[in-house]
């Protein structure tokens, strides 16, 4: 397929791997790079890149939208699904995420109405076809997803659909990167920045990484050559001591991102503090609907108050999301917690680092 096969060229990958090995060996310490995108996590495991370089430590950060959703937010979703006359519409990977007492899957078996959709527009379609019900879409995702929800809200407004609303658990990636860098215990030598988040936001929001933390950042694509080239670029920045934000995935990411999509995002949403699993509350790292779109905000329409409960005992998702532990360091990994019976969200989502580690290699 065009724009895929040429980025999987084995001969070029082989040469590039040798260059990276030489370059990383010439830096006299082990170098640690973090990716903050679930699709990168999967791509790195799938291509076998994780274990290729003895002098490179590749760690996963908070890049899986489902995984960073807090237990309390999952409990709210369960509370919503229990209410009468509600249809919950969601992307598929939320279904099996356990809250502190139940999951959407368990609620379905108790009679809750939950529809898995591919696009928020499909959820709007369900609302049109079920006028007697209230359809609530679970808006989970980063900057890539938020404009698609914003465009759907604008469409609902144009059509005058009133039985449609969202629960916004959107999160923003650059504030999470900033919060990680501010933590003393977290050691990162550079970031592999997400390709499709950056297709929307561009490269400017990462400028604080070289400027304030003197660290390299490279926006990468998702094919093996993309990731290898991005690692090479990160190492070259370290070697030359010239940290900057560079775009490897330039066929899709422009420095300015997608201004039209950003305009719609900010038309509908405004920033708000958000709670991330593992990272806690990060200022201005979430999105809530603006006042003029408050009638689409399910959290204002329904009583979703839940008791504060602790995360599942033993689950290390929080530490894994900060890159402080590998999935295999968790005492539950592969034994009590596996993709069939996940304890934490990092094992549920296909993009979660525990699920990827389980599927592609237990390193």
């Amino acid at each position, binding site marked *: *397929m*065009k*724009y*895929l096969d*040429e*980025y999987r060229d084995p001969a*070029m990958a082989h*040469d*590039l791997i040798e*260059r990276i090995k030489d370059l990383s060996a010439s830096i006299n310490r082990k170098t640690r790079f973090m990716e903050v995108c*679930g*699709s990168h996590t999967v*791509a790195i495991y799938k291509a076998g890149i994780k274990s290729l370089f003895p002098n490179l430590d590749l760690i996963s950060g908070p890049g899986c*939208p489902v995984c960073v959703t807090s237990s309390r937010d999952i409990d709210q979703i369960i509370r919503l699904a229990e209410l009468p006359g509600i249809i919950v519409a969601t*992307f598929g*990977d939320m279904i099996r995420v356990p809250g502190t007492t139940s999951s959407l899957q368990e609620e379905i078996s108790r009679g809750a109405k939950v529809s898995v959709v*591919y*696009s*928020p*527009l*499909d959820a709007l379609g369900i609302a049109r076809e079920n006028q007697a019900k209230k359809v609530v879409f679970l808006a989970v*995702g980063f900057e*890539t*997803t938020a*404009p*698609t929800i914003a*465009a759907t809200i*604008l*469409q609902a407004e144009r059509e005058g659909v009133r039985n449609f609303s969202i629960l916004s658990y959107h999160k923003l990636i650059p504030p999470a990167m900033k919060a990680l860098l501010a933590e003393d215990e977290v050691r990162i030598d550079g970031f592999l920045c997400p*390709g*499709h988040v950056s*297709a*929307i936001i561009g490269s400017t929001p990462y400028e604080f990484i070289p400027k304030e933390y003197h660290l390299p950042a490279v926006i990468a*694509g*998702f*094919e093996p*050559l993309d990731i290898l*080239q991005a690692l090479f670029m990160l190492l070259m920045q370290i070697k030359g001591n010239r940290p900057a934000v560079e775009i*490897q995935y*330039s*066929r*899709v*990411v*422009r420095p300015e991102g*997608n201004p*039209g*999509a950003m305009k*719609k995002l900010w038309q509908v949403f405004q920033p708000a503090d958000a709670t991330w699993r593992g990272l806690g509350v990060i200022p201005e790292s979430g999105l809530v609907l603006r006042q003029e779109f408050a009638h689409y905000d399910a959290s204002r329409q329904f009583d979703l108050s839940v008791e504060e409960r602790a995360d599942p005992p033993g689950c290390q998702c929080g530490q894994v999301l900060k890159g402080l532990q590998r999935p295999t360091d968790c005492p539950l990994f592969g034994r009590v917690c596996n993709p069939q019976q996940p304890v934490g969200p990092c094992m549920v989502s296909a*993009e979660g680092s525990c699920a990827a580690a389980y599927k592609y290699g237990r390193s």
Partner: protein
Amino acid sequence: MCIAVPCQIVAIHDSTAIVEVGGVRKEAWLDLLTEAKVGDYVIVHAGYAIQKVDAENAEQTLRLLREMLEREGDNQ
């Protein structure tokens, strides 16, 4: 949640495109990429085209990478 596969636009009706990837056709909404044209390759996420694939840039990335690897190879 991202589909990283570039899809080609084969038709556009109002703000909806028909895109094709690997012989499969599906709909993609163009509200977030109004400038897209038939023939363009686009990244589709949650039903919306979110960005165009720049053909010239794609070739340049590969050419530069190839040149870099050949140059480095000559030095050894």
